[in-house]
């Protein structure tokens, strides 16, 4: 099978510094713009940090769901690319995604999905540089497990909260 870049994510190692969001938005927007970052850290309770970005499902339900063919899979990286000219902001991709990962850009209202920076993701660089490795890049075969990472952030948060805080974790989200 073909090997592609994938961003490994380990929520329990995330510190919540959100330098990934800074690096992402500087790269894509030329500004620090956390709400336009393709990777977003949800923090529903202190300590419970959830790394939320495209999981690159093997069957691409978002691409399937787009009614105007604004989404396509990049041949080289297998990342989902958004054609911003075509996108109407209809939200079908958000609905179709099992993790509700895509969102509408706070500036122009078009869908936003991680494009892996063409295969060398900026977010990964700053996280690895800091020694956290909450996210890091691997090259490996496309597999069905990837889709399991596409989960709504609050659902993930409930798991992490228990992992961190035991029984108390059941109450905090």
């Amino acid at each position, binding site marked *: 099978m073909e090997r592609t870049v994938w961003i490994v994510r380990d929520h329990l190692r995330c510190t919540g510094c959100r330098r990934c969001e800074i690096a992402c938005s500087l790269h894509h927007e030329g500004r620090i713009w956390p*709400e336009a970052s393709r990777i977003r850290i949800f*923090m529903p309770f*202190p300590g419970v940090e959830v790394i939320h970005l495209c999981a690159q499902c093997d069957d691409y339900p978002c691409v399937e769901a787009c009614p105007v063919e604004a989404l396509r899979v990049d041949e080289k990286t297998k990342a989902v690319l958004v054609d911003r000219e075509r996108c109407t902001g209809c939200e079908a991709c*958000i609905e179709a995604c099992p993790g509700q990962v895509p969102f509408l850009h706070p500036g122009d209202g078009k869908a936003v999905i991680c494009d892996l920076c063409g295969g060398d993701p900026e977010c990964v660089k700053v996280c690895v540089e800091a020694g956290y490795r909450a996210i890091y890049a691997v090259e490996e075969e496309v597999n069905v497990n990837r889709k399991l990472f596409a989960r709504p952030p609050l659902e993930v948060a409930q798991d992490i909260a228990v992992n961190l805080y035991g029984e108390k974790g059941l109450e905090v989200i």
Partner: protein
Amino acid sequence: MPRGYAGKILDVDLIEGRIREVKLPWKTLEDFFGGRGLAAKILWDRLGDHWSEVDPLGPENLLIALTGPLTAFYPGSRVCVSGKSPLSNGVVGSTTSTEFAMELKAAGYDGVIVSGRAEKPVYLLITDEGCDIRDAGHLWGKTGEETIRLLNREVREELQRSRRGPQREPGILYIGPAGENKVRNAAVMTKLFHAAGYGGYGAVMGSKNLKAIAAKGFSPLPEVAAPETVRILWREVHRELIKRDRMRRWGTGYGGYYVAADTSSEPVRNWQEEWHDERRFGGPNFQFRFWVKPYHADFNCTTSCMKISCIKTGRWKGDITDMPDYELEAYLGPNLGIFNPEDVVHLSAVIDNLGHSGINIGNTMAFAAELYQRGILTEEDIGFKLEWGDAEAFDRLAHMIARREGIGDILAEGTYRAALKISEMKGVDALRYAVVAKGIGIGAHGIRSGRDYPAIHSYCCSVQGGDHTSIAYNPIDHMRSELTTILHDSGVYCMFNIYPPGVFDLLWDFFTAVRGWRLDPEEWYSTQARRIIHIQRAALLLGGPDVRWRPWLDDVNPERFYEPLPTGPYRGMAPGKGRVEEEVKRYYQLIGWDERGIPKSEELQRLGLDSVNRKLEEIR
């Protein structure tokens, strides 16, 4: 056009329910930056002409929360909370790390000024669409944990009504029960275990019936003057921070042992000692039993000095707090005669949830325990035995203070005012056991051994009293001087992030690249910082309406600091009164104050602070 700023500030009057957007003149931003400096300026302009009459807990006082030009750009984002302090009656700039700062800027505001008093509990919700005053009846009385959970859920659900997909939670400043009940040293809390602790601004929020301020921004951060330079400096500073391995690994959480064992400067039993060699109170005992997240940080920070602790077993199962950090380790540990890590983690979680300032509540409770030790306060006065080392007793006392029950009502006035009251009640001098400066509990770094904080006038000359992050120091253009802290508190970023070698030098360029005005160190120390410190000093000396500090006579160390250290390798050491007086006088000269510590007339005129000069005539 000023860069790095959102360009407007919210001005909220809770009496009328009126909300205005204020644009500050460039000149004001150029001179006073943001945070602490800008807060001092705003407070002076609005309240300076009748400062002594303003009740810090009355509707006329202002509760100010300001970011600065470097907030969210420079590593370690913070917000600065200020107002007229109910502890010192002066102006304290109290900063805390929080996403609130970044969210506020992303929503398009550099800060919030709140005046008046709401009839019923309210909270403010700030978004890109503006500010809304909301009912907070359901949040009043709630602990930190409950407040965060309820408010996060409420705001998230509201955002989700107009936006598809999961929405992120807001940044929140809030108060716990201590602030609601106007405990004078209550903190403004954020993120469960972060606090703007010095100054007592939790009580100011409580006096306004203001439970919380939540902010969620969807816009980019403001434009900077030189984006590419900022990007390069940002990476460079982070690279240096990342190399600082020990700070990142341990945070300050290993201090509970070494600040006592090594430098003899940790408060033990209300500062009766500053040394201990309790190895069971060492960092590893906290780390391996309680830390569940060994690297935790706030927006744009790689120092990750925060480590999250959780108790997983036993009667205190489910307690969550930070490591605790050194200050709370010391103040809720050895200073209460406690040397058991689990007790300290528990007490730290208790005071976080109640919204006390950890340093100041530890200071006040230890003061009470020493009075109990000396038989000045009795079991009858307190309702139970208050023995050193009894964590359950201090847990109980912390709750009584937060609810102002029994003796808690007196102790809720803070150590200094409680000492005055108890002296009167009991016919003794209780003030000699109060380890405070200008009404503010002294941070957990003693000056007697000379091995930790080298300046013996660190606290007694500070315009923020006992605040261990803002100390008097000679020379005044030193990295540790109060004038340097004013820079950090006015640019509003974390002072922990300027310490690696070389980074302090980059800081000036960082300011210049963000703001677009050249920041010259010489000008800062001779002009800009002086304006800010003189306003703070003037406010402190004008004081009132209850307590007023006497020029010169009250610039002394607490009695305890003149007693020789009784134990440890530095036994016998304590700087004498004569030496302290000399240092104080030298400091006055360096900073531009007269022989009684009042800012000199010609100095104020040079800096264009004519109204401050006129007002100070009252006490010259």
